[in-house]
């Protein structure tokens, strides 16, 4: 392998000229060919499996394409058809409701539990494991089966409902409640977000809390003035990733409800799947995918713009 100039062992601490040292260190780490060799697996994958498909999908979105015959150019017709598709707007509405309900619910649950777990008490790892368990079995089909049972006519939710005097009903088979069961399923699996919050909480220096205690700050005040600002970059990370994932939700909608009843849970990804692999309208589905990309891009960008007003970066604060 190619080795850039080997510098003599120069104790960096001995010399105060920081600039010269970092420059020298920079040269030492400079390894163009080796660098590209190391990142080659990702770079090749990106070019072949992502960049090229993205370009192609943009082209396909302007075609009529059934996989069996070559794609036929039809310009913007797909987009025009989509703008008149009642089911498209339905899936858009369902997805936005789902995102707006499930993401905050999940993050609030994750943050609350993470704060409870961020202390030295007995059995902490036991609690952590139990709370993480639902996320561990994740978006698997098994969980969808479980959910169908729990909210089914003979499921355990109805058994509870009878106890508190609510008439049992088919929660999954009723359009007004079906989406709610999917939101609950997502929120139930807050474990990953919780673990990331926990990692963030552990990085907050305890001196800050101690100093606040000395000043007589209340718990609520400590939470609002220390925990939230210090944790805000992690909250942003969880929020952005949560929203991106929620927009693409597929498996549970497909298995638990399969879009029904009366399309009340037909999420965008499911609608797209049905167009692509149900009716083999690959061009139409590609246009849908691009619309999804733009929506996610805009929402994420808005998130980052808004984050300037509430996310606090420690390094900036110190400047």
């Amino acid at each position, binding site marked *: *392998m190619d*080795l850039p100039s080997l510098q*003599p*062992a120069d104790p960096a601490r001995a010399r105060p000229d920081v600039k010269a040292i970092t420059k020298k260190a920079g040269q*030492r*780490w400079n*390894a*163009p060919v080796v*660098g590209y*060799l*190391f*990142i080659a*697996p*990702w770079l090749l*994958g*990106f070019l072949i*499996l992502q960049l090229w*498909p*993205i370009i*192609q*999908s943009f082209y396909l979105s302007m075609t009529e394409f059934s*996989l069996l015959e070559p794609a036929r150019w039809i310009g913007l017709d797909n987009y025009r058809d989509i703008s008149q598709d009642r089911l498209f707007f339905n899936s858009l509405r369902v997805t936005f409701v789902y995102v707006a309900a499930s993401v905050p619910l999940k993050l609030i649950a994750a943050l609350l539990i993470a704060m*409870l*777990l961020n202390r*030295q008490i007995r059995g902490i*790892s036991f*609690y*952590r*494991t139990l709370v*993480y*368990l639902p996320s*561990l*079995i*994740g978006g*698997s*089909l*098994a*969980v969808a*089966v*479980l959910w169908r*049972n*729990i909210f089914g006519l*003979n499921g*355990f939710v109805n058994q509870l409902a009878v106890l508190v005097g609510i008439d049992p009903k088919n929660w999954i088979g009723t359009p007004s409640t079906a989406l709610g069961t999917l939101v609950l399923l997502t929120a*139930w699996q807050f474990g990953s977000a919780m673990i*990331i919050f*926990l990692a963030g909480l552990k*990085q907050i220096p*305890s001196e800050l809390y101690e100093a606040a205690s000395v000043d007589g700050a209340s718990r609520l005040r400590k939470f609002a003035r220390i925990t939230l600002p210090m944790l805000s970059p*992690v909250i942003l990370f969880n929020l952005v*990733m949560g929203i*991106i994932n929620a927009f*693409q939700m597929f498996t549970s909608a497909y298995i638990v409800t399969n879009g029904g009843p009366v399309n009340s849970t037909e999420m965008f990804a499911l609608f*797209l*799947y049905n167009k*692509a692999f149900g009716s083999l309208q690959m061009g139409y589905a*590609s246009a849908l*995918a*691009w619309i999804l*990309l733009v929506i996610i891009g805009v929402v994420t960008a808005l998130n980052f713009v808004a984050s300037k007003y509430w996310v606090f970066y420690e390094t900036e604060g110190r400047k």
Partner: protein
Amino acid sequence: MNGKPRKSNLLVHLVMIAACLVMSYPLLWWIGASFKSAAELGNPGLFPEQWLWRNYSDGWVALPQYTFTRFFENSLLLNATTTLLHVVSASLVAFGFARLTFPLKGMWFSILLLTLMLPGQVTLIPQYTMFHAFDWINTYLPLIVPSAMGGAFFIFLLVQFIRGIPRELDESAKIDGCSWFGIYARIVMPLTVPALITVMIFSFIWGWDDYFGPLIYLNTVDKYTVPLALRMFIDTQSAVAWGQLLAMSLLSVLPPVLIFFLAQKHFVEGIATSGLKG
């Protein structure tokens, strides 16, 4: 948050126990229901009056042609391969990004982060047609080959982790004439073990749960993974044997749960020390 008086700890325990009950009640119900007869499934109560082990033995062989032995073998083989590829590639790429300097590095790293936001639906159809053209449909290749790129999330996680390892170590190895690959293999790799285990767990769990990939790429039952087999359970029977289905579903989540328990200490450590703050 240390040094709180004991009284508040009692409250925390109470709240946590309540939370754990809410979280795990569906799981307990699941275990109980997997032993229930069809008649008993509608009954309230977590556990059956009569424990029906038959749900497991019958469920295992309930599908025509193949038993669950086959589906578990398929899933294990597939996921062991993709997990291994993820770990190896992600750590190589992460080392490159975290330790080496090369032209356009900043740009590539930004692109890597951007792809975290790329919805899979955008690449889905062209990828499908590409694999179709390669004649890879109904093989495991479309599921395995993409994992050789390492996965943007895993690379990001490892880059953050490697950045936290003091450079003096590789500096001195460098001076001793160690090659870049040597530094990677002998110094950085061993130090990233907790993070590599995190990647391993995530990769295995997500791969194991993946339903969509196998759904569109695998067509014949002999290649089915466990999630597809469970789906077939619902589709092929006019009256679904819920007890058996719940029993098989429960078995299907055991591998990720086992892996998590074996590696849980490293797992949390791996996330905690990689610090997602950037």
